């Protein structure tokens, strides 16, 4: 069962409405935008996957420093190349939608920030995260001293069991006290 390029039928539409946090309009709009990205040859293939390079041409993701991580996290392909099917695309939009719960958002945020996919945010993950936040160009980078201090402080504030990494529960604990997270973790098509 997948999405054909022509139309979504009513059964699938209501199923998606039940399983994701998107409304009917949002699902139809997502379908339209997804079909525009599908290359001409594969337009009739059911359940086609769009490669990451095409997904990154979407204006909502183009300039985001986390765009590649987002594709890799939501991709369910076996070769882990970041390609998205329509179901994965809906998953992405649902996690970033207005009505998604804090638990879902924090879960996916954690996975996006976990650059090395080891299940926790270690020092290297945090370093890469801060570099993404500050742009990574030379004049906006933090000095190595500042970076080390920053990461030490972050770990001191959020690592409760003192194992040197931030795991999912600790991350969710920090996020639950941050009221701006829900409003900033949103992408609207």
């Amino acid at each position, binding site marked *: 069962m997948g999405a054909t390029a022509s139309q979504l039928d009513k059964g699938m539409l209501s199923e998606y409405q039940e399983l994701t946090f998107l409304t009917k309009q949002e699902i139809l709009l997502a379908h339209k935008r997804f079909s525009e990205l599908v290359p001409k040859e594969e337009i009739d293939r059911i359940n086609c996957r769009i490669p990451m390079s095409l997904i990154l041409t979407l204006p909502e993701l183009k300039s985001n420093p986390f765009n590649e991580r987002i594709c890799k996290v939501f991709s369910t392909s076996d070769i882990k190349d970041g390609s998205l099917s329509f*179901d994965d695309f809906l998953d992405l939009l649902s996690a970033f939608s207005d009505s998604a*719960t804090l638990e879902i958002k924090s879960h996916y945020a954690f*996975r996006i920030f976990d650059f090395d996919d080891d299940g926790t945010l270690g020092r290297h993950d945090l370093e890469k995260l801060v570099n993404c936040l500050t*742009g990574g160009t030379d004049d906006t980078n933090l000095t190595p001293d500042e970076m080390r201090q920053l990461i030490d402080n972050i770990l001191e504030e959020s690592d*409760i069991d003192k*194992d040197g990494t931030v795991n999912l*529960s600790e991350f969710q604990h*920090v996020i639950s006290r*941050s009221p*701006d997270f829900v409003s900033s973790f949103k992408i609207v098509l």
Partner: protein
Amino acid sequence: MAGNFDLNQPLVGAGLESPADEEGVHVSFNQLIAEQCQAGERLDGFELQQLDEESRDYVAELGSGFESSGRGLYDIESDDDGRQTDPLVSVPWSSATMKILSSMPSRTIGRSRGAILSQYYNKTLQLRRRSQSRPSIRDFSHSSRPSIRGYGMEVDVIDGPQSEMEKSERLVNNLQNLSMGDRMKMLRGMPLSVVEKKELRRKTLQRDKPLTSSSKIPCCSQLKYYIIIAVRHSWYSWLSFLHSLQLWQFLLKRVGGRFGTGVLSYFLFLKTLLFFNVFLFLVTFLFLVLPQAMHPPELPEERRNFTGLDLISGAGHFTDTLMYYGYYSNFTLRRSCAGQHNTSASSAPDCLSKRLSYNMSLAYFFTIGMSFFITCIILVYSMSKSFGRSFRIDKSYSILAMKVFSSWDFKVIKKSSVELMSENNCTQLKEILAEVVQKKEKTGPCQALWRLMVHGLAWAICIGATAGCVISVYFFSEFMHKDLQRTARLANTNPLLKEASLLALPALVSLLNLLLPGLFNLAAWMEEYHSPSVRTYVALGRNLMLKVSVLAVLCYHWLGRVAAKPSDINLVCWETFVGQELYRFLIMDFIFTLLNTLFGELLWRLFSQRVLGRGRKPAFDIARNVLDLIYAQTLAWIGVLFSPLLPAVQILKLLLLFYVKVSSVMMNCQAPRKPYRVSQMTTIFITLLCFPSFLGASVCVTYTMWSIPPSTSCGPFRHLGTMFQAGKRWVQELEKNNPDLSVVAKVHAYLVENPFFLFVGAGIFLIVIYFYSQVVDGQRKVIALLQEHIEKEGVDKKYLITQLQSVHERKKGISRRLRSQDSGC
């Protein structure tokens, strides 16, 4: 269980597998250590494998997945600057230990499907149990309250390493036994991919079908099933309808994409105010304007023609229209009995009583009262929700962690804005880091005194300026009042000139509102504030002080001077005059805002770019613009009593203002560089809307209704002592007509007129608040205890890992000895 972990298996790479790999998950440590000890005794068969193991053990570089933290467990290299590393971790961990560490439940909790399935199995079980005895806890979100977080987050390992199929089956079983709504909520909230959720749903529905298609079910529960499906379907279509109505969605997305959430919050606040006004307008239109429009009263003879000035001054032609209080009649409107034969005199009263009657004065009183009451409830509800979201219960400050984890605004799309945001993030991180790390400089007494003096001077300037404004408004209004008295006594006055002169006071007030915040900014520039949020609050406080005092003086002028002796200025209907004044103030405020936006911001941008040579456009001052909106809304709320169509004017004004502001922001401004805590500021704005603004307006209106005698010759409350008596009279009439309803009258007399119950109500309210604050205190203590507990568990974990490692070391040592013995022989 032991079979899951096998030393003999060839280890991939450096012995690390991603935690998404289901093997080796949920292995308990004790068994492992026991196994290791047993394995240590049977060495023969393991020799060759041990050799392989050893060679991999000394792989120092174990991929990028390992942290080198001074305090961490897994330190492989020692730090270059000789910082103290944990003495327990000087040797590299064995690959076996690494494998265990990488598959620990605390690391796999988010990634492995099995863990998620177990977790949601527990949640659905709790939900099922709870739905049988008491209502289920709907909110599973990670609030700061640990008592709720504790539910359902129990150890996933309790079920043991069952296969995923079994876990999935049990979860499906639980899902089936939940109600439809709960089931959907559970499915939606699971952090699995859509494909997996489709599978679960399919399995759940599959087993459902035989039950529902069986004919043994009585028709009433089948009916219930159909009703539930129909309700769900209509709820979905209602939600999509609401979503398609989204006002300005595209424009808001562009603004958010370019400027971020801070500037967007101003436009969302504008939208909220628009909805409040729409609600007010609908209520007054349906209950006041429409009935009166269907039964127009007799108009006075002189009715001026429409001139252009009337749009701004609201007087002239508009005086005797639906717009103002004076137009509304005070009798009970009845439909005429035209077309009926009056055969006898007795049929006429029958005709009258059978038709619908509409008591206008009562309707006016109740409509205004009810709309204020409902607005109050909506405001308090949104304020408390917003406050609940931003209130942090425990005192620990994790500013840096929160900033790093939640500061990236995913809404921003435009590339230049993204770059700007990155730059801002860098600056803010450096600032916060400096604040956190640096110890407070000991400022000498001279410096402290100097700073105190500077602050005092700035405050003195601001308070002096505000006082000056207030006094000038007071005297100017008195001067205008006397001028009006004088012109009232003169016989021939040009009405146009009189109207134009009425515009002087609103113009003055709007001008002051425009110029003084600039002065406050200058004063703030002179002072140096350590933290930008304090600066924002101080600016907000000063602006608020100005607006509140100006509004207070104006209210005194209207209610204390004009309403007290309306005959002084030849006023037949003082309420209409006050309504016109408010209309004028609104329009003047709008005109000045437009001029400021169109010309002021444009000129300032050109000035700062060409003359001052700054590369950047000026920042959009969110706080000041929001305060302007709140000021206008206060005027509208005060004015609803005197001019029922004022919400319509406010709606038009807000619509126009939105488009003007959006285009101005796009052309002339950029996002604010200072850190802007969106949800905290939104809470503050809603609180300001509720407390000084709405409270002040309702106090004004209540005072008017309670103590000021209405005009005797116009409006729905003529011939009454106060407006409030409309309600009282109605209750008395009810009692007269129907003695059974005397209870209502007594209740009315005791509750509404007697202040004693108000005190008792307030007392109970305060006691409830005290209880809740004690609960919050207790929860804070619980949080501190739990954090200590988790730290101790971490110490336990370290101990177990090092024990594991030492067992492995011992085993290795034994095997090495054996090998050297063998090679010796």
